[in-house]
């Protein structure tokens, strides 16, 4: 048994290929036979991935989902930012530069608006929960942008570690919720072309949520949404600890 465990650990990436293949197969099977193709196989697979992460987290008490189980440690390499970003870039092959240029301005507006709306939304919730200092409110509002903007803002403003942890959790919830809800909400907001996908990417900010949400909705839209979303974290890190924090301080 030990030979097998050691072997799996040493060949983590290959084990991850097999594991993801198995999850995807199950996802497409459920999509076809249980859900009558009403929810795309990719969406079911991503959801299965999240469920696996939940139970793995309960079992190990760690923070990296299934990757905390040592024989599946390769999952954190395959699902890490290097492979994710590399795969996202490759999807640009099918994208049209013309469409991107036409939507460029709208994408830029959506970035600013998305960061502002997320920050305000998060900040209002923080106030409702009894926070009354600008540092904590700004940090939680920043967490509502992405789970990177939260801790970056919190560290810059020297917020308490409890609030920083909360802002990370807020960002993770957002990313997961964007992933799950996008395929359902897409028909209602006209998310079916490059133009709206670029605006969606900027508004939602979270690269992981946007890339997974669009993958579950329509793979053709992935490059457009990802293109704008990848600027959002930078935008959030720029605005939240500076302009937004100062405005918040003035109001309070």
């Amino acid at each position: 048994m030990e030979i097998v465990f050691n072997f799996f650990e040493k060949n983590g990436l290959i084990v991850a290929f097999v594991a993801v293949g198995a999850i995807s197969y199950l996802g497409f099977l459920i999509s076809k036979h249980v859900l009558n193709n009403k929810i795309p196989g990719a969406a079911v697979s991503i959801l299965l991935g999240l469920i696996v992460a939940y139970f793995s987290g309960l079992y190990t008490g760690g923070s990296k989902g299934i990757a905390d189980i040592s024989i599946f440690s390769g999952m954190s390499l395959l699902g890490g930012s290097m492979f994710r970003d590399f795969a996202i870039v490759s999807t640009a092959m099918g994208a049209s530069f013309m469409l991107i240029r036409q939507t460029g301005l709208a994408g830029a507006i959506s970035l600013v608006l998305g960061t502002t709306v997320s920050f305000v939304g998060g900040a209002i919730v923080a106030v409702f929960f009894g926070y009354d200092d600008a540092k904590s409110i700004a940090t939680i509002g920043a967490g509502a942008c992405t789970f990177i903007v939260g801790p970056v803002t919190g560290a810059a403003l020297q917020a308490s570690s409890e609030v920083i942890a909360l802002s990370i959790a807020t960002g993770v919830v957002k990313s997961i919720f964007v992933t799950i809800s996008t395929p359902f909400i897409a028909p209602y907001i006209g998310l079916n072309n490059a133009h709206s996908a670029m605006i969606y990417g900027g508004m939602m900010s979270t690269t992981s949520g946007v890339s997974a949400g669009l993958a579950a909705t329509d793979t053709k839209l992935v490059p457009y949404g990802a293109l704008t979303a990848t600027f959002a974290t930078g935008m959030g890190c720029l605005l939240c600890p500076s302009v937004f924090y100062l405005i918040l301080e003035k109001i309070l």
Partner: protein
Amino acid sequence: MVIYGVSFLGACYILGQLLGEFLAKWIGVKANVGGVGFAMLFLILAHDYFNKRNLFSAEAEKGILFWSQMYIPVIVAMSATQNVVVALDSGLLAIIAGIIPVFMCFACIPLLVKLTKSSLID
């Protein structure tokens, strides 16, 4: 050869991500600013340039297409390594603050699409 495509993709990735790192440093932000976006633009423009001159073989293209088809599996792996427990257990605040802004943003999308569509025509 397939490796030419993979290598080409890798070069675009490195150039774009590096540009994102330097841009972040330049504006004083502790994160990568648009690295993936720049890499995508490089890929689109460079592929277009070489393709027009017939310098991009179908074989090389396969090296890029393979990775674009690996995209969903990579996302599944990413989902399986998220900290879902913390997201669900860290209390109501994180859940509400994570969900409400998403709805607010969803609501803005059709509005923004309408506003910017009209400027597309001219």
